[in-house]
């Protein structure tokens, strides 16, 4: 049995970062993001990327459901590996990490909820006009985008809550 304590810094880019630890904690998340992106690209995108888009509609419904659920199942396995990582932390690090995840979850939910309202007020059109960047896709719950936002807020939350105990 491995008695080594987990530390939050081992998955945060910096001097204590460990690729091995990061892969152990976030490997299933990486798999979920990759399969989610591949599903979107191969089965739902228009030409030239969506090479299976037309034939996909003829696949049996059970198989299509399995294909769509693979990222979700991988996400559940990610949650399990995250819980195992948390259990190997000492109580202070566990508290800091839980506070950071709570902050990240609430912040991500807030941004995802507020975005359609801002978009309704014409923010996407204004950004497109000023920068020629399309933001229409942001009003749909895109898995990699949500995870990316979650991690940015997690790093920010960890920085804030960790400072209190330094």
């Amino acid at each position: 049995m491995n008695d080594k304590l987990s530390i939050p810094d081992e998955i945060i880019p910096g001097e204590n970062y460990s690729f091995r630890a990061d892969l152990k904690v976030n490997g299933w998340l990486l798999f979920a993001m990759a399969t989610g992106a591949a599903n979107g690209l191969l089965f739902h995108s228009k030409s030239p990327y969506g090479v299976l888009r037309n034939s996909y509609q003829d696949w049996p419904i059970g198989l299509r459901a399995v294909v769509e659920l693979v990222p979700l199942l991988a996400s559940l396995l990610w949650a399990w590996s995250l819980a195992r990582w948390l259990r190997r932390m000492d109580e202070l690090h566990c508290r800091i990490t839980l506070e950071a995840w709570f902050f990240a979850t609430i912040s991500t939910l807030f941004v995802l909820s507020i975005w359609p309202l801002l978009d309704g007020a014409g923010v996407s059109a204004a950004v497109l006009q000023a920068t020629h960047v399309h933001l229409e896709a942001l009003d749909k719950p895109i898995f990699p985008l949500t995870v990316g936002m979650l991690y940015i807020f997690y790093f920010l939350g960890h920085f804030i809550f960790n400072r209190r105990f330094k």
Partner: protein
Amino acid sequence: MKNKLRELRAAKEWSQSDLAGKLGVSRQTVNAIETGRYDPSLPLAFKLARLFKRPIEAIFEDNEK
């Protein structure tokens, strides 16, 4: 919460890392307890009490007293 952990540790000539190792926690946790930024859980407080062979109230001081 105030505590006498730093004095007790110094009396034993242990570093924060030594104490962290004996308690099974990180050095940051020992430091945060010593500086009063973090109050340990009851199991950890009992571990400290056993390690220093003193009652919990001889190590930690209730601020509301």
